Every structure is written in structure tokens, then in C-alpha cells.
């Protein structure tokens, strides 16, 4: 670390929010750290750790009416305390000296202005450029961030660009005025894995080229190895560990850091049970559990046999024209009883459509799906009703997929009543309570509403709801993607236990290749609606045949540089 005064110095920063109930929630408990000029600092933490609050506090963007900054807090930028700066000074600073990019580029860009206008606006505001000059500079910036056809795209609206392109526009906007500090708040979380890698490379390049300091905020320790100099690990509003990149990865001091490093599924190891945070907070040192063997074996009982599944969507074009979009093209696979088939692919690959079509939530355009020998796609609605409970789905967003007006008891009893499971109400209630035990929730949860639970708990409720119907096949559509790494490990462990216990078969749809590697016996890679490769998990990851599979695998963020060599290339 440099001895000269750092670019940004956060001292004893404490932030609390006044809740509607009148209580105070202490989001930051007096944290201190420095960012030197031209350095990249990664701030890592799970939801609720206070990492985003920190970035918003630096930008002074926290809502004024319910935020309280603890007395004695200081945020010194080039020696000036931002907490005492007036509005005018802050406005001059924002966008010029400190710029920011956010998690979701689609919603962070104003949808009704062209991307060019939004960059030009920043330039005209801070540099006093005329419109024409600003426009030329905007095109140059778009070119610098690698947007194809920058002189045409400058007039595009945000929705006309892909997610990766939108994030490039956000970056162009942020570096427009050559800021000294760039704050990147989860800039790649909403993006596909290959796009994520491109954006990270771009950020690293720009950091070097422009000599900016970067504060990189993420929940994923795996990402920071790509280009951070220092790592700060936060939990519950406190800094748990702060040190140079290599030290944090190779010799973590704090139990929580160790846990974070271990609970993320690795490509080169498949423990029978993933580590969770609690394993590290106990007195005994963590013992790595034995490895688990996976893969289809000859003679496995096939529970679901899908042959030539197709799904196309039609849309109108012109006066009489029709446009047909083939979302799923000739997809065939077999799901063995008690095993897991992982489906990976980027957004738009058709992986979700496969799941929805098998649930008959979409009408298949062609193909057969033999469930225990019967084609469920050809059944009449009444015939299918009997099968319905045996194939269930868990969605990605546990916030949106549970009815907010139902108690957990109602959520669990409804499918049982519908499918006449259990003799009477009392027996169903018994079953519901037993299932809650099974997924690791207390029985008093029955009387609560979904909003009273955290994301991981809600996903447990969703799993319990599926289990009420004693399904044979469970489709997990990005079921752990919205969860924190540590919670994700718990839910993956639960899914594994349930599979071992009840012989469930999983169709595990995810964009996260490490998670899929961990849980799957066989893996199917999809691109543009087609299966490009399908093989036993171990052989697919060890020896990918298709170029697209190789591309996906090489884009996986792999901790920090020295680990890379040991892993699959």
C-alpha cells in the first residue's frame, strides 16, 4: 500500500435506516478502508452485508429521508469529506470524478432516450462540450468499450441492445469524463457467463488504460480473482477480512471467508455435501467430505424419455406476414430414475422452454415425452391431470412464485386437496408439517406469509410445495440462481438429500456450470434451441467436444489466477 494519502478513504462509516415501524436497522457498523489511486479493490459479501450501501454512501445516493449516518463517519475523497459536501459540489463530483455502473443495465438506462443521448448528456454536463463534439466523443467511447457499429448504435434505444451491449453503454457513460474512481456494483450479475467474462476483461483493460481506481462490488468471490488487487470481505455491515488478493485466497484468516471460498461448487471437486457457513463457525476444523461419484450407469431405469421435442412461437409481421421463431429444435434426452440431468445454456438457448413444455405450460409443436412409457404430450387434459402431480417444477424467483396472500399452510395444502392426497384436512396438515421439518423450516412457519421469509427459506417452501405431491420428476429451473452462495449450498444439499431419500429425478436447468457440474449425473448443453452436446457430467467437463461447450467452460470465473492452471481449461 502507498504511504501517500489514498484517493478514497472511508473512516468509521456507520449507516442506519429508519424502518417504517420506527426501528433502526444498522446497515453499516463503522467500517474503514482505503482505495489508492489506480488500484482495484473488490468488496465481496452476500445480500445484507452492506456492500451496496457502502457504494451508495460514497456517492451520497442513499435516500435522505430515512438514512442516518453515524456521527464520526468520514468519507474522504482526495482529502475532502464527502459527507459534508453540499449538493452542488456533489453533483459536480458525481459522473466526473466518481462514476458508477450498476447491476441491471436494462433498468439502469432510461428506456425512452437513445444511448447516445444518455452519454452526450453526461459529457455536456461535466465538460461543457457542445452537442456535436459530445456526439463524436460518444461514438468514440462506444467504440472504445467494444460496441459493434458504434456510429449506428449511438442512435439505438437501450431495448434494442443485448444485455452485454447495454452494460458496455453503461461503462462508456461511466468513463466518459475520465473519472478517478469507478464504482462497479455487481456489474455482471445479470449477464450470461461468456458476456460476464468479456465485461470483466473490458473493465480490467479500461482500468489500466485510464489509470482509474475501481471499487468492484460482488457477491461472487470467484469473480474477483480476475483483476482485483485487494479484497474486502463483508458480512452483516462489518468488514471480516481485508487483504491482498492472493493472501485472501490462499491464507484466509477469517472463518467466514473460508466458508465463502468453500461453499461455492468447484469444477475440480464434487464433495458429497457442500460446505455451509456453519461448518466453519464451529470449533472443530472443517473436514472435507468424501467425493461423490456421478453419472448414468447402464441399466438405469429411464423415467422420462424425450424424443424430438420442438417448440416454436409465431408472431405477426407486416400486413399478412408471420414470423416463426423456433425456441426448441429437436431436443431428445433420457432422464434416469434417481439421477439428475443438467441442462446448461445461455439466455435464449431454449432451456427454460424445454421445462415449461414438459409441464405442458407451453404446447409442444412436435415430439414425444414418454413418462413411464406414456406420452404425456399426447394425453388429453384429464388424462394429464393424473400425471401432473408426478412432474413438478421449482422456479427461479422464490419471491414471485409463491402467492403472497396465502399462508405457508394454504400454499402446502392446496395441491394436496387438488390431487386428493391425504384422507382429510387433519392428515394433510400433518403431512405439511412433516414436510416443513424435512426442508428445514420450523413448524410455526405454517401460519406465516411468504414475505416473512428470506429468499432461501422461500425456495425451501417452494420445494416443500412440490414434495406434497410426491413427484417422480422435479424440474429445477434456475432454482438456486437467485440465492446467495452460502444459501445456494444449503439448498443444493437439501435437493441432494431429497434425491437420495425419495429417489427423485431432477431436470436441473441452470446457466451456472459449476452448480450443474456439482449436482448432475448427465449434462446437456443447449445453444439456439438445439442440443450441442450431451454426455456424462465428468466426461463432458473433462473432455468437452463441441466448441460452444469449450467456450462456456473457459468463461467460468475461477477464483484467482494461480488456481486456473490446475483446473479444466
Amino acid at each position, binding site marked *: 500500500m502507498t504511504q501517500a494519502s489514498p484517493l478514497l478513504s472511508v473512516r468509521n462509516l456507520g449507516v442506519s435506516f429508519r424502518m417504517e415501524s420506527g426501528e433502526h436497522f444498522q446497515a453499516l457498523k463503522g467500517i474503514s478502508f482505503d482505495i489508492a489511486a489506480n488500484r482495484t479493490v473488490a468488496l465481496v459479501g452476500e445480500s445484507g452485508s452492506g456492500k451496496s450501501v457502502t457504494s451508495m454512501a460514497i456517492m451520497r445516493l442513499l435516500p435522505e429521508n430515512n438514512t442516518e449516518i453515524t456521527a464520526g463517519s468520514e468519507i474522504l475523497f482526495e482529502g475532502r469529506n464527502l459527507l459534508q459536501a453540499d449538493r452542488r459540489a456533489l453533483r459536480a463530483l*458525481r459522473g466526473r470524478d466518481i*462514476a458508477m455502473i450498476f447491476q441491471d443495465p436494462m433498468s439502469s438506462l*432510461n*428506456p*425512452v*432516450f437513445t444511448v447516445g443521448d444518455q452519454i452526450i448528456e*453526461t459529457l455536456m454536463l461535466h465538460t461543457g462540450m457542445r452537442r456535436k463534439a459530445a456526439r463524436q466523443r460518444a461514438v468514440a467511447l462506444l467504440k472504445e468499450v467494444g460496441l459493434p457499429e458504434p456510429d449506428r448504435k449511438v442512435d439505438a434505444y437501450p431495448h434494442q441492445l443485448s444485455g452485454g451491449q447495454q452494460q458496455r453503454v*453503461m461503462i462508456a457513460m461511466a468513463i466518459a469524463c475520465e473519472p478517478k474512481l469507478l464504482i462497479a456494483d455487481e456489474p455482471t450479475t445479470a449477464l450470461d457467463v461468456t458476456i460476464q467474462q468479456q465485461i470483466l476483461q473490458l473493465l480490467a483493460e479500461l482500468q489500466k488504460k485510464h489509470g482509474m481506481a475501481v471499487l468492484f462490488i460482488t457477491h461472487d468471490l470467484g469473480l474477483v480473482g480476475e483483476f482485483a488487487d485487494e479484497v474486502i470481505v463483508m458480512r452483516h455491515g462489518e468488514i471480516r477480512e481485508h487483504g491482498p488478493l492472493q493472501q485472501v485466497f490462499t491464507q484466509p484468516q477469517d472463518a467466514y471467508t473460508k466458508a465463502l471460498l468453500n461453499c461455492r461448487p468447484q469444477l475440480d471437486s464434487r464433495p458429497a455435501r457442500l460446505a455451509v457457513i456453519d461448518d466453519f463457525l464451529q470449533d472443530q476444523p472443517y473436514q472435507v467430505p468424501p467425493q461423490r461419484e456421478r453419472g448414468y450407469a447402464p441399466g438405469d431405469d429411464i423415467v422420462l424419455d424425450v424424443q424430438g421435442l420442438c417448440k416454436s412461437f409465431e408472431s405477426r409481421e407486416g400486413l399478412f406476414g408471420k414470423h416463426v421463431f423456433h425456441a426448441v429444435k429437436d431436443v431428445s434426452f433420457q432422464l434416469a430414475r434417481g439421477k439428475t440431468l443438467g441442462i446448461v445454456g445461455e439466455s435464449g438457448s431454449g432451456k427454460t422452454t424445454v421445462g415449461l413444455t414438459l409441464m405442458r405450460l407451453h404446447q409442444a409443436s412436435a415430439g414425444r415425452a414418454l413418462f413411464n412409457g406414456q406420452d404425456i404430450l399426447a394425453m388429453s387434459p384429464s388424462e394429464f391431470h393424473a400425471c401432473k402431480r408426478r412432474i413438478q417444477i421449482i422456479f427461479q424467483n422464490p419471491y414471485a412464485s409463491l402467492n403472497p396472500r396465502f399462508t405457508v399452510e394454504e400454499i402446502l395444502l392446496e395441491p394436496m386437496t387438488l390431487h386428493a392426497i391425504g384422507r382429510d384436512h387433519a392428515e394433510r396438515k400433518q403431512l405439511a408439517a412433516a414436510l416443513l421439518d424435512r426442508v428445514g423450516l420450523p413448524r410455526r412457519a405454517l401460519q406465516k406469509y411468504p414475505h416473512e421469509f428470506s429468499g432461501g427459506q422461500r425456495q425451501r417452501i417452494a420445494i416443500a410445495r412440490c414434495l406434497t405431491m410426491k413427484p417422480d420428476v422435479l424440474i429445477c429451473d434456475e432454482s438456486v440462481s437467485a440465492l446467495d452462495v452460502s444459501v445456494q449450498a444449503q439448498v443444493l444439499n437439501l435437493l441432494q438429500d431429497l434425491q437420495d431419500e425419495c429417489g427423485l429425478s431432477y431436470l436441473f436447468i441452470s446457466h451456472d456450470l459449476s452448480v450443474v457440474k456439482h449436482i448432475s449425473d448427465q449434462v446437456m448443453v443447449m445453444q439456439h434451441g438445439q442440443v450441442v452436446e450431451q454426455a456424462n457430467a465428468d466426461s463432458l467437463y473433462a473432455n468437452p467436444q463441441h466448441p460452444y461447450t469449450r467456450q462456456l467452460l473457459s468463461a467460468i470465473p475461477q477464483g484467482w489466477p494461480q488456481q486456473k492452471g490446475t483446473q479444466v481449461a
Partner: protein
Amino acid sequence: MLAYILRRLWQMVPTLFGVMLLLFILFNWVGGDPSYILAGKSFSAETLANIRHQLGLDKSLPEQFLIFVQQVLTLDFGTSWSTQQPVADILGSRIGPSLTLALPMLLVSLLLSVIIAAIVAYVRGSLTDRIVTLICTLAMSVSALVYIIAGQYWLAHKLGWFPILGWSDSLATNLWLYVPLPLLLGLVVSLAPDIRFYRSCFVEEMNHDYVRTARAKGLSEQVIMLKHVMRNALIPVVTSLMMSLPYLFLGALLLERFFGIPGMGNEVLNAVDRSDFPVIKAITIYVALATMLFNLLADIVYKLIDPRVQLK
């Protein structure tokens, strides 16, 4: 775009046909026999037959419907049963007074409600916001009739600031003498719900991520509000505005009645009163056409303010 407009216009044909069929069935089913009303108290079988022949009611139902279709296609609804004037002339003379009142009201109301809504949305949660919300709720819970009667009594009769009612042939006189009081009372009625609705549009937009981006750029709150938020918040505002436009042609029923304004609203009431079927039919068809056309216009305006909208 052109293909879209053509397709939408084409889709209006079955809709209009549906409206006509419904209208025709309603008139024949619940409308009763108008010849009894027209014949008055002293009717004989002969006068009745005579009237029925004149009105074309002695023809078979399909034939009558065909005549109706013809009327709609030529937009010639014949003559009024009560005054014998051509329907087109009646409506032509009524639309002027209606628009004289309704257009200024629409413009002033839109301008005021958008500005007030933007201000209270900006200071949301403050005392001002709560007071405005309270006033709006109170204003919405009082019947329009109360405002009209109280306004006529206090402002016109007691204080003499306005004439109680009346209308002239001169546009200027109407605008500065007869329009202000009904305009004021109309505003009191329409502002409260509009302000509340527009406020919620603004507040919703202000919570979006792009507002945070705009702040992070260093833009001032005024620019954020007037440039970034306004254009997005206008999208629902335009919809509600377009939905209300067809009613311009219906006039303000109560206001025209109470202030003696010879507009469409008054005419509708008169026509219903006298079972003047040709006039009612004509107005219904015109309102249906206006609704469809303004809906189309709303979708096109949408496309202009919101580039994300795809016209399909």
C-alpha cells in the same frame, strides 16, 4: 407502421358491426314501439299504421337492419323524429358549444394536474403531499351536483361573479362570460382523481433504477424530474387522456344541462327524453367510432413517446 394502421382499421369493421347489431337488438327489444310515443295521446290504429310506415317500422327486421347499415355507411341518419330536422344538422350545431366548454377544460385540467402531480410526487411523504392527498380525497367524495349547485348559488347568485347560466352565438362572449364558471366547477371535479393518478405514475417512475443512474451522473433533481421521469410518466398519462377524448364529443352532460349550454350533452338528454331514436343511434355510432379511432391514435402516440412499444 402503415401496415399496422391498415390492419387496425380493418379490425374496426367487425367491431363496428357488433356495436350496430347490439344497438339494433336493444332498440327493438327494450326500446318499445316508438310510434305510440310519437302519436301522442290521441292515437288511432290508422295514425299508428301511418307513423309506422313513415318510420319504416312496418318493414321486416332484416330490412330495417339493412337500412341501418346503409345509414351508418353514408353517415346519414335521416331526420329527427321529434323536430323533423336532419340529424346531421342537429349534431353539427351542437358540437360547437360542447367543444367550446370541453376543450379548454381538457387542456387546463391536463396542464394543472400534471404539474401538481409532478410537484407532490417530488416532495412525496412531506406535509404538502399529505395535504394535497387529503384535499383530493375530500374533493372526490363530494358529488359533482353539489359543486354545480353550490357554485351557481354562491359564486353566481350571491357574489355575482359569473352569470348563473346562458349562452350566446359569439365564441368570444361564450369564452369569457359563460364558460368560466362551468369550467371552474368541471375542473374541481376532474382534477382530484387526475392528480392522484398522475402522482402515482410519477412516484412509480421515480423509483426506477434509471433515476439512480441519472443522479450518479451528477444531474440536478430538476433535470431528472422534468427530463428523465416526465417522459416515462407521460406514457400512462397519455393513455388515460386518449381514453377520455371520445367523451369530448358527448359533452359534459350535467354542466351543459345546468348551465343551459346547447351542446351534445343536452341533446343526448333531450333525445332520450323524447325517444328520438335516430339522434340516439347517430350519437352512439359516432361515439363508438371516436373511441376506436382514439384508441388507435393512443397506440400510435405511445410508439412516439415510448420506443419500446412494438406495434403488432
